[in-house]
């Protein structure tokens, strides 16, 4: 798409790669990721910023990518779920804990949930159960009842690095 009055060129580092594209000014980051870049691991579960399915990391902080316009992310560095397994294809520690503790069923909330868990552990490497539950308040899961997600996070508590 050529740049016009209502479009802008953005350059964003995504999962370690610099990507440049022209986006409509009204384009949400989540749509830029999904539709323009084909990174469909980031999901859209609502239209009121409630569900957290769209959570990605912008400059190391978990953000709901439906609350950000793509143009606002110009110059930022973004990690999506695809970025966690890039290269080796090996699951990261948080992903592995989800697998080990059966913390996903349909998997739709999972990418956003994993991103939020990383954020939670970065801010508080040794959270209590209450802190885990509170820390995931921005993410809805309809399948697991959260029980096994909490177990997965507990297994990572105090283990240090979240990478």
């Amino acid at each position, binding site marked *: 798409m050529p740049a016009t009055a209502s479009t802008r060129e953005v350059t964003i580092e995504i999962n370690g790669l610099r990507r440049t594209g022209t986006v*409509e000014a*009204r384009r949400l980051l989540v749509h830029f990721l*999904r*539709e323009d870049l*084909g*990174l*469909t*691991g*980031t*999901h*859209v*579960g*609502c*239209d*009121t910023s*409630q*569900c957290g*399915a769209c959570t990605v990391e912008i400059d190391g902080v978990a953000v709901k990518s439906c609350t950000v316009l793509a143009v606002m992310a110009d110059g930022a560095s973004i990690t*999506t*779920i*695809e970025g*966690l*397994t890039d290269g080796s*294809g090996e*699951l990261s520690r948080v*992903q592995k804990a*989800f*697998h*080990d503790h*059966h913390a*996903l*069923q*349909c*998997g*739709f*909330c*999972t*990418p956003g949930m*994993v991103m939020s868990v990383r954020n939670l552990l970065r801010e508080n490497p040794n959270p209590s*159960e*209450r802190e*885990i*539950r*509170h820390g*995931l*308040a*921005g*993410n*809805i*899961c*309809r*399948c*697991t*009842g*959260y*029980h*096994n*997600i*909490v177990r997965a996070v507990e297994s990572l508590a105090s283990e240090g690095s979240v990478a």
Partner: protein
Amino acid sequence: MTISQGTRHVGQPLKRREDLKLLAGRGRYVDDLKLPGMLYMAILRSPHAHAKIDSIDLSLARAAPGVRLALSGSALEDRIGPIVPNWIIPGSKVPVRRVVATDRVRFVGESVALVVAESLAEAYDAIGLIEVEYDVLPAVTEEQDAVRGDAPQLHENVPGNITTFYKVKGGDYEKANREADQVVKLRVVNNRLIPTCMETRAIVAAPEPDGTLTVYIGSQVPHMHRRWIAETVRIPEHQLRVVAPDIGGGFGAKMHLYPEDLLCPYLARELNAPVKWWETRSESHQSTSHGRAHTEDLEIAFNNDGRILGLKVSTLGNVGAYLSNMATGGPTVNTVNFGTGTYKIENYEALSRVVVTNTVPVDAYRGYGRPEGAYIAERAIDAVARHLNLDQVEVRRRNFIQASDFPYRPYGSTGVMYDSGDYQALLDKALEAFDYEGRRGECEALRGNGIYRGIGVAAYTHMCGMAPSRRLAPGGFDRGGWESARVSIDSSGRATIYSGSMSQGQGHATSLAQIAADVLQIPLEDIEIVQGDTRQVQAGHGTFNSRSMAVGGSSVHVSSHRVITKAKTIAAGMLEVDEKDVSYSAGAFTVPGTDIAPLTFSKVARMAYVGHKLPDGVAPGLDETVFYDPTGMGAPSGVHMAYVEVDPETGIVDILDYVAVDDVGTLINPRLAAGQIHGGVVQGIAQALFEEVSYDSESGQLLTGSLLDYAVPRAEHVPNIRSSFQQTPSPTNPIGVKGIGESGSIAAPPCMVHAVLDALSPFGIKHLDMPLTPPRIWAAIRSVREGDAR
């Protein structure tokens, strides 16, 4: 044939095989699909609950950028539809449901017009340019209001707004009523819910170069969707391929035929281009089916020892503006048939009326009718305990169906049979895990300090996997009860299993493989499960009614057995021995008592495909397809207990503990089974404490129109779930499973309500309707306190 077991897979808490792609962000949901030249459909929905459509002006929308087509209902009337329900209780009056409304709208959210454009943004923009003139009519949203004489009438052929009358009767309720020491009446409301799959609905219909059509849809029932779309859009069924990729939850909401399921295929053929529709969350609240929405009046006749002699039920089931796919079956067969629950209530009488209102159609949601049925039984037994001031555990014990009673037909029913179970043992396990005695004492002690804690108990049973096929016709259920599985062995001895079941997160790629691995005795890695593609999977009914392990799993089991039976014949030929002397163990055919070397399964498979040395009359190949039609239905059961603390100043409920003991028959995979309980229980807690769809009763406006207003619980609102199992194998199928998916959402609502009522018992509060939100509890306490002050 006896098959000695190699490694047992059934019963092992194996980790899921489907996790890796989902965790890596490589799941493929419908909305992830992008096809060259794809167009986007958007729908204009009615802003009114009930109105005549005077005129629709599409001219501005048609002229808008990127728009390829803009249509109203009249252009489609002769082309597609109408939408016909799939479960029609005999005698029901079926209102006509157009795919897009023509002259009248009957709920907020009903489709009025559509636009197809080159981008989604352009489609949405153009929708905003359509002008519709409405003549607003009076609306009715509540079931009690809709059956009043002066209520607005929705459909000419549905007088009194009642589509269906359904009666159940066993024993002599009137006699029980006369003879009982006491009779208590209770009205209970089963609140309207939104299933809220985290993935909303989405469809892509794509014309293929060969003239066929592929429809990608997150369907729990791909083959049913193929049939329904083919019939309603008038496409030959064999030229339609339905593909269900990964599905972000279903819970019953993704097993119905919706207008968009028909519009995309129709438009794709008209425009000869792929057409996609994706539902926004707020749109979903007004276009995807809701659940529950019942009011039941109970009359309970009991003696002073707590024994219930009789129960009379009158149900009003609100099904919204039209009869959705299974709508007449929910408040009727699925609810009142199960109204006596786990209790021996021999005199039973129920009347259910299915009621149309100006609301979103109501259909299956996790448990469909069985949560409402269990709620009847459980609120009744709880009322007896409260009324007599008897211990809630003791009252249940006195009324339970006993282990020696199975198979048991409640109230002499011909339609309901509980195959097996042991409720007393379930209760004992739950009491022990919960520390009932200790906590009872704790509750009493704390009450002195103004701390209000309560214990809730609920027991349930129901039936899963509607079958056998020939028994479904009299109830008007227009599909079979069987499931199909094809076990196809390749020339290296590995298996591809084509199953008509359809996982939406349940983990079939793991659990079905476990079932097959035990019979085939090959490693799990050598088994692939294929579901969700009508071009690959021969036939099926899909996943609902907790049927996938009982019926789908049994079909995999039976077809795997057939494979081994044939392989054994081939092996006998290869070994030049009599077939009856051959055994199959640990993945190899042996001839016990001889020194003949074992012959591996893979060698036999290769022989089956080269065909060089097959016994006379044996055809090449090792590939068996089974349509497994069960002889009966398994009846899971369980006892759940909850411990809560209610803050009387705020009405907030803190859930301190939750114990679930479930008997779902043989466990295929305990890890996945527990996951099903966790998820179901939290959906049940959500119904009891948080969620409720609200309509403005005057205007019929949907007040809970987005996730901002509809209270789906977060991690911090719910407790850990302590789940354990008792395994009484079901005699109705070869693997002994009963069904698990719906247990949690059936047991948790009454369990939570009873816990809260127990906590509130010092205030003399005997009944509150769900959801038990802080304002509702606070208001109840306040009205008691104000009454005391007066």
